[in-house]
């Protein structure tokens, strides 16, 4: 597996990122986050619900606009860039906790939606995709071992299968990065490990950088070498998974509001 390499330009560089939601009572969801992610890295962002993990991922592909700070992708700033949002987003595949497949479409058509960012709206009006896109989609399905169910409707699949299809959809974007937001939170442990395995393996084979939000410590230790721990919108740990001590886990999961100021002081 690729380790973070100081000499290499980071794939993603986050600088001073903050986000306060309108109506959030002034409490920041993200508070001055700075992280570098190397190309090919499988980074786990660990933290309890409400720590700001989802907001962080969504600030990267601009599903959420950050209040302050910058995100650099391959050295180019993508935060302030008002220009082509589609071109930015298609470079980041996304995997969701609730899978978010279009239930009434076939598995293959769901994966093909990963190609939408490359295709014109007029062609989409006919719900048709070029032959080349179909080839890409089927290859991606094969990577997660779901090609045998290509013509089944998405809502006939089990949760684990749906998430594998969702991973194939993200792969079909031929992205540089995959943002996985609690991809296994709705799955049982056995299926969860299988799904994380598919995610890590396909990313490795294709050289895709992965940022994966998790709240389970076990999976973080098992699947990642580097972990970023988040609590109340701030990074409270950034280091190898092996260094996750009880004291650090306590800081991630049980930190009281007052402790944030003490640490910063």
């Amino acid at each position, binding site marked *: 597996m690729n380790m973070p390499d100081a000499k290499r330009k980071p794939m993603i560089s986050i600088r001073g990122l903050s986000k306060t939601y309108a109506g959030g009572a002034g409490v920041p969801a993200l508070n001055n986050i700075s992280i570098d992610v190397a190309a090919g890295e499988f980074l786990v962002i660990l933290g309890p619900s409400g720590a700001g993990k989802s907001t962080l991922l969504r600030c990267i592909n601009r599903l959420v606009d950050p209040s302050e700070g910058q995100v650099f992708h391959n050295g180019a700033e993508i935060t302030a860039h008002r220009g082509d949002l*589609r071109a930015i*987003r298609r470079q980041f595949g996304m995997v*969701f906790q609730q899978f978010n497949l279009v239930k*009434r479409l076939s598995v293959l058509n769901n994966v093909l939606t990963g190609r939408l*960012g490359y295709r014109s709206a007029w062609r989409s009006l006919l719900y048709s995709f070029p032959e080349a896109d179909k080839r890409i989609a089927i290859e991606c399905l094969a990577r997660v071992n779901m090609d045998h169910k290509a013509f089944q409707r998405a809502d006939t699949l089990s949760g684990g299968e749906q998430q594998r299809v969702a991973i194939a959809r993200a792969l079909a974007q031929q992205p540089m990065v995959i943002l996985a937001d609690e991809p296994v939170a709705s799955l049982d442990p056995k299926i969860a490990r299988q799904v994380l395995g598919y995610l890590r393996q396909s990313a490795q084979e294709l050289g895709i950088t992965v940022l994966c939000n998790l709240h389970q410590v076990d999976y973080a230790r098992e699947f990642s070498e580097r972990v970023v721990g988040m609590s109340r919108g701030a990074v409270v740990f950034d280091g190898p998974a092996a260094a996750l001590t009880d004291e650090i886990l306590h800081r991630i999961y049980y930190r009281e509001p007052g402790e944030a100021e003490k640490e910063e002081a």
Partner: protein
Amino acid sequence: MSALAFDAAVTSTLAEASRQRGARLVRALIWAAAAIAVLWFTGAQIGMNPVALLKGMPFMADFFSRMFPPDLSHLRLLGDATLETVQIAVWGTLIAILLSIPFALLGAKNTTPHPVVFHATRMFLNALRSINELVFALIFVSAVGLGPFAGVLAIALHATGMLAKFCAEEIEGVDRGPIEAMQATGAGRLQVILFGIVPQVIPAFISYSIYRFDVSIRAATILGLVGAGGLGFSLIKTMKLFKYHETATCILVIFVIVFVSDWVCARIRARII
């Protein structure tokens, strides 16, 4: 918690539950009394009078006896009018289906390009729905002349108001997850609608459309009253000529059409959904 404190907590929650139940009952009684008072008052205002109904019974019986038996020989003259009624409903509903798609997208909070467009669209749709088909038919008869085309336009407009509003509400109720997923792929606005929203609302939209066709059939049977084609014209004509036996035949045919369309629509809906 000690056993005693536990008991006390349970008892006080029980007491609170019965107190809340009592308060709800009192509120319900007050509302019921108010509703009855209002209904009584409005009933008197609009001259609701059971005695008048009873006194009128013989006249109604007389009317029905004049209609009986229906003149079935009149049936062969109603063939064209019956076909026309169905044709008006088909075309009116079809135009409404096509028109309601863009209006639904403009009039749903999550797909409208601008809040001003949203409010304007909803207001327009409300206007369409608030004007009865017969009123529209009167307008169109004076615009395009007597005949079924005026009826088609009348049904199309009124039905667009209903279908578009239902569909817009359906669009507003879709699961946000697939929409976010489509946005994340880099899909454009139209693509997000096509792949994230349309598959979610298609079953309901088809169901509403079939239901609306059923309503359109019923509307089409009376549009002839104002000269907009269909069976209604035969109905009013025979009545004005005091040919009540033929009027009865018209009513019978209307009954059969409505019954058949209801049955067919139910079958189609069961097939599709």
